[in-house]
Every structure is written in structure tokens, then in C-alpha cells.
């Protein structure tokens, strides 16, 4: 297969529309963002194409500082995410950190098994696979592969929140200026963002969504 430039030209055309719309409808936003950023939120989410944070939250450029990786995994020794957290919390001074997992996550699915995905992905997914082993009895009780992977995605969010709580710059900001941490789960089939509360399962989900998640 030969890659044509079509799909690439399409982007540059899309960008021209974005820029024109912003210039016409919100010239003050463009002027404001050119001066600096003061986002309220740091978003730590999955690289999955179906969860564009600014779009699904109907936010604007300048609203959300973003790090996205495979399966929103946070580990204390990863300097990539640690630098983002340091910069966002320590310098940009966001007021809240949101860790967002999601249903139908390819990373969570892969972490449900031990297939050899190559050194890089095996190593990256290991914390999530360890989490699966740790919660084996709970996960075994769930009936479908989907339900298991969704629960693992949730457990992974709680795990990431624990990693954040151990981070000195986060601890300092929580104590000194009331930085808050939030766990979220984005449900792809519904397009809905759900708040996770410690230990509980998708508490704010509508009955319909809960039904589907539990099935």
C-alpha cells in the first residue's frame, strides 16, 4: 500500500478551518493564549484516539494541560510523566489533577493476559499486569472479558492516584494551596465521563451505563 498525501493535506485543511474559526469567533481567546497559559486542570489519560480530552469535555485551547500515554499508567520512576506533573503542578500551578481511564481500553485488555507484545510494551504494561494478579479473585468473579478489563482500568486509575499522592510536589500543592486529585472513567460506548470514588465502581453512572458496565 502506498500512502498518498491526501490524509495529510486533509489535516492542513482542517487546521486552516480551526484557525479561521478561532480568529473569527474568538479573537480574544487567540490573543489571550498567545500571552500565556493558566489551565485549571492537568489531565493524565490514555493515548487512545477516542478520548480527545478537550473535545469530550467541550473545552477550549488553554483549559487543560495534557499527558497521554498507553493506558494512562503512572509509575514513580517514569521521568516523562513525572516531568509533566512537576511542570503542571509546580510551575503552571493547576488546581486539579484528573486521571482518566476508559472502558474498551486496548492496554487494559492486553494487561488481562500475558501475551508477549515485545520488550517495550511488556515492560510498560507490567505495572498493570501486576495489578491484575493482585486483584485476581475480584476480577475472576466478573463474567465477561469486557467487565474484567473495565474493572482493571478502574483499579489502574486508583493505582495512579496513589502514585500521585506519593509525589512530593503534589503533596506540597495539596497541603499549601488545596490541589485536588480526581479519578475518572470515560465510557466509550456512551461518550460519558464518570467520576470514580475510592474503591467504589462508577458511582455516577446512569443506571443504563451501570448495567452495561456490569454485564
Amino acid at each position, binding site marked *: 500500500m502506498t500512502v498518498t498525501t491526501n490524509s495529510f493535506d486533509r489535516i492542513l485543511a482542517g487546521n486552516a478551518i480551526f484557525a479561521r474559526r478561532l480568529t473569527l469567533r474568538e479573537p480574544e481567546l487567540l490573543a489571550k493564549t498567545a500571552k500565556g*497559559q493558566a489551565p485549571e486542570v492537568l489531565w493524565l489519560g490514555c493515548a487512545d484516539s477516542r478520548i480527545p480530552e478537550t473535545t469530550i469535555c467541550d473545552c477550549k485551547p488553554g483549559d487543560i494541560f495534557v499527558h497521554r500515554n*498507553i493506558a494512562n499508567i503512572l509509575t514513580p520512576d517514569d521521568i516523562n510523566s513525572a516531568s509533566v506533573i*512537576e511542570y*503542571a503542578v509546580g510551575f503552571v500551578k493547576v488546581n486539579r489533577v484528573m486521571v482518566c481511564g476508559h472502558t474498551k481500553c486496548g492496554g487494559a485488555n492486553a494487561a488481562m493476559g500475558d501475551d508477549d507484545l515485545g520488550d*517495550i*510494551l511488556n515492560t510498560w504494561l507490567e505495572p498493570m499486569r501486576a495489578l491484575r494478579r493482585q486483584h485476581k479473585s475480584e476480577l475472576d468473579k466478573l463474567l465477561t472479558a469486557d467487565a474484567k478489563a473495565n474493572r482493571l482500568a478502574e483499579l489502574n486509575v486508583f493505582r495512579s492516584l496513589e502514585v500521585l499522592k506519593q509525589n512530593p510536589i503534589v503533596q506540597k500543592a495539596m497541603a499549601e494551596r488545596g490541589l485536588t486529585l480526581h479519578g475518572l472513567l470515560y465510557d466509550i*460506548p*456512551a461518550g460519558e465521563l464518570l467520576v470514580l470514588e475510592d474503591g467504589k465502581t462508577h458511582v455516577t453512572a446512569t443506571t443504563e451505563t451501570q448495567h452495561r458496565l456490569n454485564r
Partner: protein
Amino acid sequence: MAEQQQQPKHKRTISRYLQQSHERIFENNRKWVESKTRSDPEFFAKLSAGQSPEYLYIGCADSRVPANEIMGLDAGEVFVHRNIANMVPNTDLNVMSVINYAVRHLHVKHIVVCGHYTCGGVKAAMTPADLGILNPWLRGIRDVYRLHEAELDAIPDEKAKYDRLIELNVVESCRNIIKTAAVQQSYQDNQYPIVHGWVFDLKDGLLKDLKIDFEAMLEGIKKIYNLASSPDRRASTTD
């Protein structure tokens, strides 16, 4: 780093204000779902069937550069990694796992590295200061400076020098992506992905294509970093 615009806020109103901004996100999310469903009732059903994005975007974590929005793309169209100053360090497991997954499992056709002018991360790297935990990360940008020292030192204007470093940092990230076995092997077998370098300008919202000559860069890199034709090509065990 002096990017933060301090808003004078009375302490007592802060928590109420925060609560409102939090609720706004959920409210906006519900509105977005409604409007999407209205224009395409099958939108979420299609997304839940799986993702097959054509693009991998590697950009800065900066809030002012929302990846898919600046590209005019919707949910499901672009796989995204964002970090401080759109770096692709050769030994960073985080970004390497994203590239690996996008190339080997999602078969993306294009990989875009997108920097932006007035990048705070690049600015910080140009500032002679100890930035603690950020030091090892920003060292990558200082290395880009060193690689292009002659060119950068010859630019008298500080702003022009800063802009050029931002561009060169994008070029070096592209080079590091092309160094991976995943990209070299996939390109040899499929003629994709193609790697592109862009810079986003916050002043007018436009993307500038640095017009990286992918083929030429790949050929240059293969002289030293050829990983496409190793005798034991086990796709699953190399990067």
C-alpha cells in the same frame, strides 16, 4: 516558566469556583454527547467497535495546543502522546511504548511531531537554572542545542534563536522516531508510516509544516541505525 497568569482570587471563593469549574467539565461532556448523537446517532456505536486512527501525534503537554482540535480531527482519528516540549528520548519507555503500539498494532499511516512557538519547556531549557526533577528531561533539549550549536549561535536575535531551537527540537524528535525498529521495519514492509515535523503558532492558530524529507532522513539514519534488516527479525522483541 513565567507563563502562569495569576488571577486575583479571594480565598473564600476559591473552593466554590473550583467546584464550578469541575462541574462545568461534566456538564460540557453531556452537552457534547447530545450534540454528537444528534448529528450522527451511530457516532458512539462506531467508536465502541474499536479505533483505527491514521495518525499518531506527539506534541507538547501545553494546554494551548489541543492535538486533534488544531488538526480539525474528531474523536477516533488521532492517537496522542503529549509530554513536556514534545521530546522523543531514545530510551524513554513511555513514548517508545506509544510509538510501538501505534505502528505495530494500530498501523498508523502518519506520525506527526508537533512543537509550538513560545514553548515554556524549551524556554526553561535555555535558562541556566537548576530545575530539579525537570533537569534530566530538559537535558534532551540542551542536547539539541549542542548538536546545532554553530547554527544557533550565529543567530543574533534571541527570539529568532528561540524559534529556531523549537524547530530543531521537532526535527530531532522526528529523527529519533525514524531510528526505531518499529518505524524502519514497517516502512520497509508497507511504505508507511511517514514522519512529519510541524510547529504550531499560537498567534494565528496555524500549523507550519517543516517539510521534513522523510525518505532522505531515513536513508541518512540507516547508514548508522539500520534496524530494518536484522538477521533475526522478531517483530515482537525489538522496538
